[in-house]
């Protein structure tokens, strides 16, 4: 398998505050230098809690946000210029809130036509044929094309969002919490549709979510993000079943599971570090039961640990 997406040392720093002369008074590192590879045809799940930088990462990957450092390579070609139109042909984005990702004053047809016309200069007749094809593959009726976004339910709107991403003919989709705004009974429909489309069009997915169970159910591999850094990457069936990083274990133990008694897996009142004033060393050290002085002074780097798993921890959990 080839690499569909390769990112090297990608990071993003945001300026914060404003002094009298409009200069920023400080910076926040939303994404620490991050290196990841996504294979052609695979689904890489990215999990993390709020504030872990997963949305910032996603927006950099489609060119909506310029990275502070690092490189993005898509299907072998480097794309560092943060030009969404250039990215758009290769990589597309499916948004979390399906309704607000559709312009309320345009018909679905107008929304669907934009990428075909602007990215691929497709003539009108061909556009209409292509839209019909795509609509068929996402199980939407063609009569929907002349309606406006507010006439659709969340699930339908999300299918339209997926159809729009497919229209750009991109082979990599960034799915940013694609089902978290949907009801559970509709969520499964969309997840299954995504699985079918992946097979049908040989797509590569980057599936971002805070819902561990959903990520586990759809991904081949999972990367766990904490405070802007990847702390663990591994095969989906192992990451939560046999976590190596203490944070991954904390996540897995916190998820409410039927048949498991309620226990707080963690001491009281532990919180995320202050992004304006990040700790030295491992960001998780303050919450970690295994932390040592080394953890508090040195930053662990991702290192292989067993088959296909990499962990950024000095004291990984070994079976």
């Amino acid at each position, binding site marked *: 398998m080839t690499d569909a997406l390769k990112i090297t040392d990608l990071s993003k720093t945001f300026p914060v505050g404003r002094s009298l002369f409009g200069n920023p008074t400080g910076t926040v590192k939303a994404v620490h230098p991050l290196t990841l590879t996504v294979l052609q045809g695979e689904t890489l799940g990215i999990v993390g*809690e*709020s504030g872990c930088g997963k949305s910032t990462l996603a927006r950099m990957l489609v*060119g909506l946000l310029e990275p502070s450092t690092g490189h993005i390579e898509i299907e072998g070609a480097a794309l560092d210029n943060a030009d*969404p*139109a250039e*990215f*758009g042909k290769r990589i*597309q*984005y499916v948004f979390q*809130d399906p309704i*607000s*990702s*559709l*312009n*309320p*004053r*345009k018909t679905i047809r107008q929304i669907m036509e*934009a*990428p075909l016309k602007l990215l691929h200069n497709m003539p009108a007749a061909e556009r209409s044929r292509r839209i019909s094809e795509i609509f068929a593959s996402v199980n939407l009726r063609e009569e929907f094309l002349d309606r406006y976004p507010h006439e659709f*339910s969340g*699930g339908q709107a999300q299918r339209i*969002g997926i159809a*729009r991403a497919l229209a*750009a003919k991109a082979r990599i989709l960034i799915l940013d919490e694609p089902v978290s705004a949907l*009801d*559970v*009974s*509709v*969520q*499964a*429909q969309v*997840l*299954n549709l995504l699985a079918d489309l992946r097979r049908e069009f040989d797509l590569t997915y980057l599936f971002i979510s*805070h819902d*561990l*169970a959903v990520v*586990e*159910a*759809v991904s*081949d591999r999972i990367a766990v993000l904490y405070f802007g850094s990847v702390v663990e990457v591994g095969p989906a*069936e192992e990451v*939560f*079943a046999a976590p190596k990083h203490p944070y991954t274990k904390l*996540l897995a*133990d*916190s*998820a*409410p*599971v*039927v*048949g*498991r*008694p*309620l226990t*707080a897996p*963690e001491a*009281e*009142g532990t*919180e*995320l570090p202050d992004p304006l004033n990040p700790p030295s060393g491992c960001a998780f050290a303050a919450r970690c039961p295994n932390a040592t002085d080394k953890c508090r002074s040195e930053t662990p780097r991702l290192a292989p640990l067993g088959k296909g798993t990499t962990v950024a921890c000095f004291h990984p959990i070994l079976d």
Partner: protein
Amino acid sequence: MTAFFVLLARNRLALLGGIVLACVVFLALITPILPLADPDVTNTSNRFQPVFLDGALLGTDHLGRDLLSRVMWGTRLSLAVGFAAAIAAATIGAAIGIIAGYYGGRTDNIIMRGVDMLMAFPYILLALAIVAALGPGLFNALIAVAAVNVPFFARNIRGITVGIANKEFVDAARLAGMSNSRIILSEILPNVIPVIVIAMSTTIGWMILETAGLSFLGLGSQPPQADLGSMLGEARSALITNPHTSIVPGIMILIIVMSINLLGDGVRDALDPRLKSGALSRPMAATRVDRAETPPAASGVGLLEVKALETQFHVKNRIYRAVGGVDLHVEKGECLGIIGESGSGKSVTALSIMGLVASPPGVITGGAAYYDGEDLIGAPYRRLRDMRGRNVSYIFQDPLATLHPLYRVGDQLIEAIRAHRPIGKAEGRAKAIELLKAVRIPNAEKRINDYPHEMSGGMRQRVGIAMALANDPDIIIADEPTTALDVTVQAQVLTILDELRRSRGLAIVFITHDFGVVAQLCDRVAVMYAGRIVEEGATTDILDAPRHPYTARLMACVPELGGGKRRLEAIPGLPPVVDKLPEGCAFAERCDRVQPDCRSGGIALVRKDGRGVRCVHPVDTREAAE
């Protein structure tokens, strides 16, 4: 568009304003062809003629000019100048605002600094300075009025544009390959135009007043030409001796501006989507109760017993039956889970108990909620208020939105106590600290002085729980208290709730959509679908062997951690909209076990051995256990 005019016409005041304005504009347009005296011909022998005199219906002014004619021509002029100034200011202001708002960053900074600079003047000073430089005259007054209003439009439109430019559909347009100018024209502008129209329709009247004002000061239209403002200005010296020369143009301005304002308000209301949906109405202190029938009597089970509760939302002519006859009860010290998807009526059920459903549009149309034998639904507001927080208290979903942003958390806790009994300052503080300690907030003595925004989501929700505990209630109703929290924080908060319930013997009604949470926390569970309970029973029984097909399928379609990569059992279709529920079973449309008899008649919740199912063909126990 048609919808807009229908909406506008339905607003009677706006219609009145529109008709009056249309008449005035029409008269102004045809003024040149009306048989009126020349407005500028003076006849000093005929000066200050009173109204209703032959030959001069509205009398004459200090130079003997016909007032009717002058008012008509003046109206023409005032309207033209006012509209021109409004259009000029709106166009220029909107263009500046859109550019600043869309491009942001440095462009925005520079433009908005300039706008701030202009807004630092009381507007008339700027207008006076401009007129002073250009010299008095109607056209110069128009320029001055338009110029001083540009910053107001620019700032307003910029704010709206920033909001739209951050919407996801603009990102999507970028990814579809649109250039900035195309995005502005096809994505931003169509969404901003309603706001521009609103801003314009509500400021035209103001613009007319301002130009009239400059003319009144003698800085606008110059004699002999007169607009309404300069007519007033000229008449001022004869105010006491001949008031009608002042009253005539003054009333005319009042009529014009008032009709424009009425119409403008109508336009605003018709274009504002929030008003359309009735979302801007104020919720009353307690939900409106309008029960057609006498509610069923209490049967005496449980501390809190809800009987045949029906709550509806009346929006325009539609009636949404959010809760369509719910029975449930909770015992002392018991935790009852209510589970369902959004729109299933679970939250509305919970909020109805203490009359906290927003009303309008909510109305409780039937049933009762008995607390210790006393019906809360029918209780007078004073009694209800007295019991809120003291006997039954609530914990809500989003802890940032549910705490008052401008009061310290300690003060909000003390207020919760003080609402029910007088308490001194020191005692209140001590009690607040004690409450924060009860929910295990570290460093409670210091955190009591925090504002909500200074706390993390988990800490805020602990404050929410502490507030619910303030008066030692018997029942806590928790409406999705952990949905907005991260999993690790959720685990902490759930543990606290569980321990509190055991140590204090609290009854909890826990509303959620998460089976995992229900399994860990609740003794019994009720599953809701389309406003009704479809299944209820002991948590373990239901989770082990669901009998209603909806419960079974809902559980199957939620992935559970530890299952690995797999295909999910999706439920086809959508939940029904509660303003047109089908006859029979609401789930029939999506159910794979559906039979013809599912679609007719009312289907009752059949209770047996502490287990209730609302289904004609339930999954039998053996099947369900598999």
